[in-house]
């Protein structure tokens, strides 16, 4: 099925007898029963053909360049170092395998991919991104020499972030329009916390991409058999990226059930009317009785609709998806049961310490509002407001029966995607450490709604201007364009300012609603994790006389910093806990509430509470450095 968009400002096509109607500015061809047959792309002018492609290409290049440039200032995350190492091992195994080396033995697979303990070979996380990190390193650094080791490892995440931006643009363009797509895509790119994660060789930004890609693939699969295969492959890639992809089938099932029922709405309405008549005959008008009576017909029509709609999507999800995961994870070739160990690991994951509203949380039950409040203070306020507005607009259109493409219900789909991603964090038992990175797949939905809301508001304003101002009459397209540019530009500018302010300590940043980093600290929100900020004190340390450094949470990255030349070998890591402090001449504390204990251990050993340097982000301490007196 192809999709088209009515030319902005163009007169509606003659709908009489043509079966074509304009829904929310989209030219939709209807079947006699009201179902959508097709919506053709308007290719009447060259720029209508090329503008979306050029915009997509520009968004892709700009996103990739921005992330790759910015990541150089972001320190190494604790887990990232492990993923880099493991990725190198995985990549070497694949390269050996394709070059015919004898690595397809259980022994060699176990050695590279781990065996026994679930976390051996970093087996608690699926392999796709780590493999990509390793292959990228082999290609961009080892082979081509065009990137530093760090940049080469991080390039796949940056690439997937650029893919996400383009996917959001393309999906929104296809469903709601060009302006909506551009604004939504830029709001995704300029979302401080997602931008931060897109700079790391980790899985949190990539799963947002592959989650959304799965949603889009499913949407396409509803109209194309071939895309059912694509859906399976993309879902498999998502599974091979991060465990929260296992929630995705819930999105598909819920959405599929709705569109199945929608496809049978005429029959369902007939059943309902008959049920009403029966109940009226029995002199009861109870709504509850009607609901109970309609359960059977509803299930029947949903089943009929489901069978006729595109059941092949489930073959994609159930067969192709797991097969893709299996193909990408050699450990499963010899230990297929590891898939249960992997999921079990995350269902029984230890609760890391996390500060929220002034308290340290490391055991359930967690406050139900963690996801809500954290989103409210980390997403740019303009995105939240426009997203709320857009959600309202989409809901109102659906209520009025004017939703775009009701047969595939894209608005419902992004709403379900949002809910499935963030919903588990309202349960009070799902681990909250990492906060917004765990529900990053919700972000595209929010930004798409924001794009819709912003354009709706701008068009309302444009329509008023055309009505009220003489010079504007007959220039609806121009006025709308100016209003959209002004409003969209303002939203993007505000998001850009938030993102710029958040760099390079994105986890310390909070939005204007919170009052920036200091406002977040006042609220008692988590300061950071993974020891990323330690990189900020390296220039100072490097200028000091040699001496071992107690680096605590940054210790996994310490060797890499020395290898990169950011530190001299004389400033090596001193070791762990009290023994490390005892050996150290310098000590750093990465400020998180539960890391306060490191301060006290250092005070005791050094005999002073006075740091010689306190690195700050937005005025908020992120790393203290002590020097042994």
């Amino acid at each position, binding site marked *: 099925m192809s999709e088209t968009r009515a030319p902005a400002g163009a007169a509606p096509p003659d709908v009489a007898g043509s079966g074509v109607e304009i829904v929310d500015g989209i030219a939709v061809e209807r079947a006699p029963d009201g179902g959508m047959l097709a919506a053709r792309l308007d290719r009447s002018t060259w720029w209508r053909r090329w503008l979306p492609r050029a915009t997509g290409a520009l968004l892709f290049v700009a996103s990739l360049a921005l992330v790759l440039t910015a990541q150089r200032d972001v320190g190494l995350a604790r887990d990232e170092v492990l993923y880099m190492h493991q990725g190198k091992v995985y990549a070497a195994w694949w390269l050996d395998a394709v070059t015919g080396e004898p690595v397809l033995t259980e022994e060699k697979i176990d050695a590279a991919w781990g065996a026994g303990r679930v976390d051996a070979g970093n087996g608690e996380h699926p392999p796709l991104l780590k493999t990509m990190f390793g292959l990228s390193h082999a290609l961009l650094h080892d082979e081509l020499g065009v990137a530093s080791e760090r940049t080469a490892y991080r390039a796949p995440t940056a690439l997937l972030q650029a893919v996400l931006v383009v996917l959001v643009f393309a999906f929104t363009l296809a469903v709601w329009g060009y302006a909506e797509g551009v604004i939504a895509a830029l709001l995704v790119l300029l979302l401080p916390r997602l931008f931060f994660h897109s700079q790391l060789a980790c899985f949190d930004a990539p799963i947002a991409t592959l989650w959304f890609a799965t949603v889009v693939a499913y949407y396409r699969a509803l109209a194309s058999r071939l895309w059912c295969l694509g859906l399976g492959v993309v879902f498999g890639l998502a599974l091979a990226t991060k465990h929260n992809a296992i929630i995705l089938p819930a999105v598909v099932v819920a959405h599929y059930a709705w569109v199945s029922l929608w496809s049978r709405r005429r029959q369902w309405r007939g059943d309902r009317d008959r049920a009403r008549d029966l109940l009226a005959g029995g002199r009861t008008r109870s709504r509850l009785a009607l609901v109970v009576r309609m359960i059977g017909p509803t299930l029947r029509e949903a089943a009929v609709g489901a069978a006729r709609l595109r059941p092949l999507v489930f073959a994609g999800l159930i067969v192709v998806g797991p097969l893709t995961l299996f193909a990408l994870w050699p450990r499963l070739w010899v230990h297929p049961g590891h898939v249960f160990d992997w999921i079990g690991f995350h269902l029984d994951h230890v609760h890391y310490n996390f500060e929220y509203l002034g308290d340290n949380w490391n055991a359930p039950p967690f406050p139900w509002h963690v996801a809500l409040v954290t989103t409210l203070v980390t997403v*740019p306020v303009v995105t939240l407001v426009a997203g709320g507005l857009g959600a309202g607009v989409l809901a109102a259109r659906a209520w009025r029966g004017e939703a775009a493409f009701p047969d595939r219900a894209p608005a419902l789909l992004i709403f379900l995607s949002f809910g499935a991603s963030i919903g588990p964090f309202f349960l009070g038992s799902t681990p909250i450490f990492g906060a917004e990175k765990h529900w990053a797949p919700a972000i595209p939905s929010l930004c798409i709604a924001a794009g819709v809301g912003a354009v709706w508001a701008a068009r309302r304003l444009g329509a008023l201007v055309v009505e009220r101002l003489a010079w504007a009459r007959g220039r609806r397209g121009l006025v709308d364009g100016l209003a959209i540019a002004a409003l969209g530009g303002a939203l993007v500018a505000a998001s850009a300012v938030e993102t710029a302010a958040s760099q390079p300590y994105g986890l310390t940043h909070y939005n*204007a609603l919170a*009052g920036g980093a200091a406002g977040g600290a006042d609220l008692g929100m988590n300061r950071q994790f993974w020891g990323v900020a330690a990189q900020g004190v390296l220039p100072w340390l490097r200028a000091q006389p040699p001496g071992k450094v107690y680096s605590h949470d940054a210790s996994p990255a310490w060797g890499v910093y020395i290898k990169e030349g950011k530190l001299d070998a004389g400033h090596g890591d001193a070791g762990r806990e009290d023994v490390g402090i005892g050996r150290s001449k310098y000590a750093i504390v990465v400020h998180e509430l539960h890391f306060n*204990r490191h301060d006290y251990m250092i005070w005791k050993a050094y005999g002073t509470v006075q740091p010689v340097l306190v690195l*700050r982000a937005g*005025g908020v301490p992120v790393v203290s450095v002590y020097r042994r007196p």
Partner: protein
Amino acid sequence: MPRRRDATIRAALRPSVAAAVTVAARVAPAVILLAVAAWEIVVTRGAPGEVPDDAAWGQAAAAVRVDHRPGELIVFAPPWVDPVGRMHLGELIPPDMAGRLDAARYPVIWELSIRGARSPDTAGLRAVSSRSFGGVTVRRFEQAPAEVLADLVALAPKATVRGKRARGPTVELAEVGFAPHRCAQLVPQPGETVTLDFGRLTLGGSIAGGVGLADVFTRRDVRDPGRLALKVDGEVVAERRFGVDDGWVRFAAATTPGEHAVEVELEAVGKGARDRLICFAAEVRR
């Protein structure tokens, strides 16, 4: 007559009011979004400037150093700015002072605060002076200090210990409730009670103390609570049960001046209560 005139005016106004409302409703979403965007840009760019810089802290610290005398307490607020405060004035804060039981024994308290925050150590006190240095407010508080007759933390290693314990007592600077506390730390065996017998001490009018579970990781992994009972001449005069989320729990007991037998009972409550790093401090006060 006036009523008719009012009705005429209302009728005349109605269309224009309705039109204005309609226009406002159509303009409002765009205006709100533009206003929010402008506000967000201004607030975000201005936020770092809302936090005093090192120059301001340097001036404030210099002002404190002029009048500060040894034994005077220095505190910072809000808690998150504590590292910055210690960087500028840490040489005047010995580790034991940082890990104090409370502020009662200090005759003078210097509070350096930003963003309108206040330290709990100065709650209820009235500042005798207050000056501001680029957003850092320096307040000086004076109080009649509590006179400490005996420090049970210092005495703990020499106390007679009865009961099954995994280790301790030792004097530590420990994390309890994510704050530093100089304390006597003891780990009873799970489900066991350990008694620290301090012998006969010369008491004043009160014993003040605090207790809690040290170490965030053992608090996370084992959720069982602890219990402390303070006994004077065999009578329980203060008792506290403290869980993993309770932080530093204060206790106090009025005492009769003179020589009395003092004991502290520490219990790891429950058969699974392993690694209860019970950390307590107490002062005998006149």
